[in-house]
């Protein structure tokens, strides 16, 4: 047989055609698909033995127990113990890799040594009028600050004004909420369902109480409340006095429900209904703090706190709480100073502990309190917050990098103490803010040593019990042979809870409420437009880059530079949904994107406080340290 060129071509053509009827091309396609999933730049997850470790979350005051799944020493996922975690807590193990992390000490943008920073701060501190802003009061680190400030001339210990326990502070302190006993909870803007106290405890008690939310915004808490009273921004205290009037207060004579309706826009019948519920439907409690957007002023807080006295909350839904034992050497501590009590220009050296996130204070307000040429030193893990304004920036460790103690949340009826052991090694140049202050003070010792001493002090009490996170077993403290055993339990994940609570009412004599001041403010709060900032617990500090899921990729949280408006308000100003607009206040202006929402009160511009938006900086900060609402104008951009 003779092979011609034509036969060869036929064979090649037939073979090519036949290949399509074999698995080969499909296998090749499949393999190509697999190979192209495995390029060298594709990240490879770590391999190793999986272990479980326990810690306590320090990212907000709730102090949730956390189970960390680790590969080697590296946590790869976090989960709550006996309950869920908030988004920040779930991604807390990402924070050591936060892209904007401060890597070394710096002086006005130029790297410097830690020794140089300590020496410079110490030098300025000699001149007195030193202040420390502690974003998370109640920790052992807070004791370090207060002890040092007590020995300084004009030492001021400052805490963020928008605190979750603001109502308890207004009642004199040493108290805690007991929501488990409450059948009616009246909340003045407290974000109970979003992040307040311990979420697990709030959600556990939630079926037992009727929630009345008093707030201009339809926040998530307002949406989930049994009753939502949308009082006009800035008139909440008038509503509090209206309730006080119905509960029999002499201070609130003029605040009849009809008068309150005129000021606040809340129907008189609804005010009566809430007052009736507070009187007749079992123990009630009134909560007025914790809105990350800003604090109430002192009169407002007193009016809100005073309602608790009228509603008979003391000893039932607000209970006295003992302090966690303090080791020797902390006898003389500086008292807390309210920021509005500090005279303008009254601070020469301001140290800010920004490592623990708290509710933000506008920088413009803090700046007002600084003397000309004052020094600011911020211990921070990123430059997103106050650190961007500081003369000295000190790199602080983040959650999981050093041992921290976690004080009890404001809704814990008993004193508690737990620890967040350092699961990861911090970068070399970081310094714990308390250790920095100890170095400045020249006192020696470290926070770690003080934590050890505090555990010993707790052990000495022989009171209460220790619950381990791993298996939930409770061991009476009296059965723990030594403080070392207790320290080991804390390191492995445990919480000490003091024994019982006192049901004895503390007998607080409440200061008379300045009804006239509240009336004046409420009357002046009838703005044509009001800018109402809002925020989320913990979102003022650094958050995991994975939060893009919440902001950028789903918009379940308002993104940067977004203003929410009622469609009627937008129509009036010719603003379209998604259109650009400019919001102006007496402090400045900000370009924002309009997002129309029927849930927004007409005449109100809601804007999220997020790092980078500057919304807080255009809020008009009043003399009493308030920025919950600001008169505003807007126009199409």
């Amino acid at each position, binding site marked *: 047989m003779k092979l011609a060129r034509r036969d060869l071509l036929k064979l090649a053509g037939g073979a090519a055609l036949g290949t399509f009827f074999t698995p080969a091309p499909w296998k090749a396609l*499949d393999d190509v*698909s*697999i190979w192209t*999933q495995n*390029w060298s730049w*594709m*990240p490879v*997850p*770590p*391999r*190793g033995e999986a272990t479980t470790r326990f810690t306590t979350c320090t990212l907000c005051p709730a102090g949730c127990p956390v189970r960390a799944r680790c590969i080697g020493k*590296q*946590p*790869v*996922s*976090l*989960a*709550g113990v006996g*309950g*869920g*975690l*908030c*988004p920040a807590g*779930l*991604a807390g193990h*990402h924070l*050591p*890799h*936060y*892209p904007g992390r401060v890597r070394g000490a710096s002086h006005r943008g130029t790297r410097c040594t830690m020794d140089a920073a300590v020496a410079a701060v110490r030098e300025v501190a000699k001149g007195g009028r030193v202040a420390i802003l502690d974003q998370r009061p109640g920790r052992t680190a807070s004791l370090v600050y207060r002890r040092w400030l007590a020995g300084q001339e004009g030492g001021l210990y400052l805490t963020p004004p928008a605190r979750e326990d603001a109502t308890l502070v207004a009642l004199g302190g040493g108290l805690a909420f007991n929501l488990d006993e409450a059948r009616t909870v009246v909340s003045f803007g407290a974000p109970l369902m*979003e992040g307040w106290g311990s*979420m*697990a405890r709030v*959600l556990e008690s939630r079926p037992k109480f009727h929630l009345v939310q008093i707030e201009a915004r*339809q926040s*998530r808490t307002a*949406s*989930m409340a049994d009753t*939502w009273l*949308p009082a006009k921004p800035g008139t909440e205290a008038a509503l509090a006095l209206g309730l006080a009037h119905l509960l029999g207060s002499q201070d609130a004579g003029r605040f009849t429900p009809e008068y309150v309706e005129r000021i606040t826009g809340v129907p008189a019948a609804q005010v009566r209904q809430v007052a009736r519920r507070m009187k007749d439907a079992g123990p009630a409690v009134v909560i007025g703090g914790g809105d990350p957007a800003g604090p109430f002023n002192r009169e407002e807080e007193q009016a809100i706190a005073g309602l608790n006295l009228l509603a008979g909350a003391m000893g039932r839904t607000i209970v006295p709480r003992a302090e966690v034992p303090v080791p020797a050497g902390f006898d003389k501590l500086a008292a807390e100073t309210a920021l509005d009590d500090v005279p303008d220009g009254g601070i020469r050296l301001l140290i800010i502990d920004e490592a623990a996130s708290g509710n933000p204070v506008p920088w413009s307000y803090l700046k007002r309190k600084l003397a000309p040429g004052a020094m600011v030193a911020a211990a921070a893990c990123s430059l997103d917050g106050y650190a961007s304004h500081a003369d000295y920036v000190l790199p602080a460790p983040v959650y999981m990098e050093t041992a921290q103690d976690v004080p009890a949340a404001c809704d814990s009826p008993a004193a508690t103490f737990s620890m967040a052991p350092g699961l990861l090694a911090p970068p070399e140049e970081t310094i714990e803010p308390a250790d920095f202050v100890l170095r400045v003070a020249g006192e020696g010792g470290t926070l770690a040593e003080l934590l050890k001493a505090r555990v010993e002090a707790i052990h000495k009490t022989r009171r209460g019990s220790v619950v381990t996170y791993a298996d939930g077993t409770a061991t009476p403290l009296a059965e723990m042979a030594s403080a070392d055993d207790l320290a080991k339990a804390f390191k492995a994940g445990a919480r000490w809870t003091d024994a019982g609570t006192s049901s004895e009412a503390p007998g607080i004599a409440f200061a008379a409420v300045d009804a006239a001041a509240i009336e004046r403010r409420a009357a002046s709060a009838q703005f044509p437009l009001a800018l109402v900032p809002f925020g989320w617990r913990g979102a003022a500090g650094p958050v*995991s*880059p*994975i*939060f*893009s*899921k*919440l902001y*950028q*990729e*789903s*918009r*379940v*949280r308002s993104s940067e530079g977004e203003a929410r408006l*009622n469609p*009627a308000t937008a129509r009036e100003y010719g603003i379209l949904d998604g259109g650009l607009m400019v919001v102006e206040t007496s402090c400045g202006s900000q370009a924002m994107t309009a997002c129309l*929402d*029927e*849930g*927004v*009160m007409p005449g109100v511009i809601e804007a999220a406080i997020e790092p980078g938006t500057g919304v807080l900086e255009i809020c008009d900060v009043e003399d009493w340290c308030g920025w919950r609402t600001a008169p505003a104008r807007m126009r199409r951009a």
Partner: protein
Amino acid sequence: MAAKTKARYGMSIDVDRCTGCGACMVACAVENNIPPAPEGATDRKGITWIRVYKIDNGLPFPQNRSAWVPVLCQQCGEHTPCVSVCPQNAVEVDKTTGVVGQIPERCLGCRYCMAACPYQARYFNWWDPVWPAGMEKTLNPTVSPRMRGVVEKCNFCHGRLHEARAKAAAAGRREIDPADYVPACVEACPAQAITFGDLDDRNSQVARESREGSAFHLLERLHTGPKITYRSGRPWVHDALEIKVANNKKEPVRG
């Protein structure tokens, strides 16, 4: 009696309990190695296997009320639209669990499945997965990152299912302990709004909740047999959610 080896996993979501915090979205991203969004990503191109939508009753202020609803792959049980359109057999229904699985290694990125999915619960990788420097160390070793050009979606945390099976096998059991297999979103939810379990087990909490009077399925008229059940005592939630899903602006096919 032979141990039960088949199950039909499903979820029940209590809309009235959901606070819209987004913990489920974050937990899902952490568990399944879904990267943070690149700069150009929007809500149309982002990857959120479970996405919380805000809906409202459409009334003016102050009667307006909002609710938050997590929407994920509905794990269709009948006429699964994504399975029937995939030319690559990259979507499969596991007969032993009822879970609709996505096999990225087979996926060619044609996105027919995205166009077919009425719930808009499938996501395309428009970018290569990139984590900030050092964050690769925090990836979950039981799930491989997917590359640009493939579709992905919720698979009820199949890594956790494999771990539960391995644990059962190590203990000499054929059947997994229900406590060992809980998807990340269920575990994370602080409000305990999501229940997970075997729908074929009539006594399981999820099966009981799915039979409640307030329970409904998304786009029920399509008869896709979803295994995700929503519950709400507020009558407007059902209609508002259907409208939200039907009008979803997520980028399905166009580049």
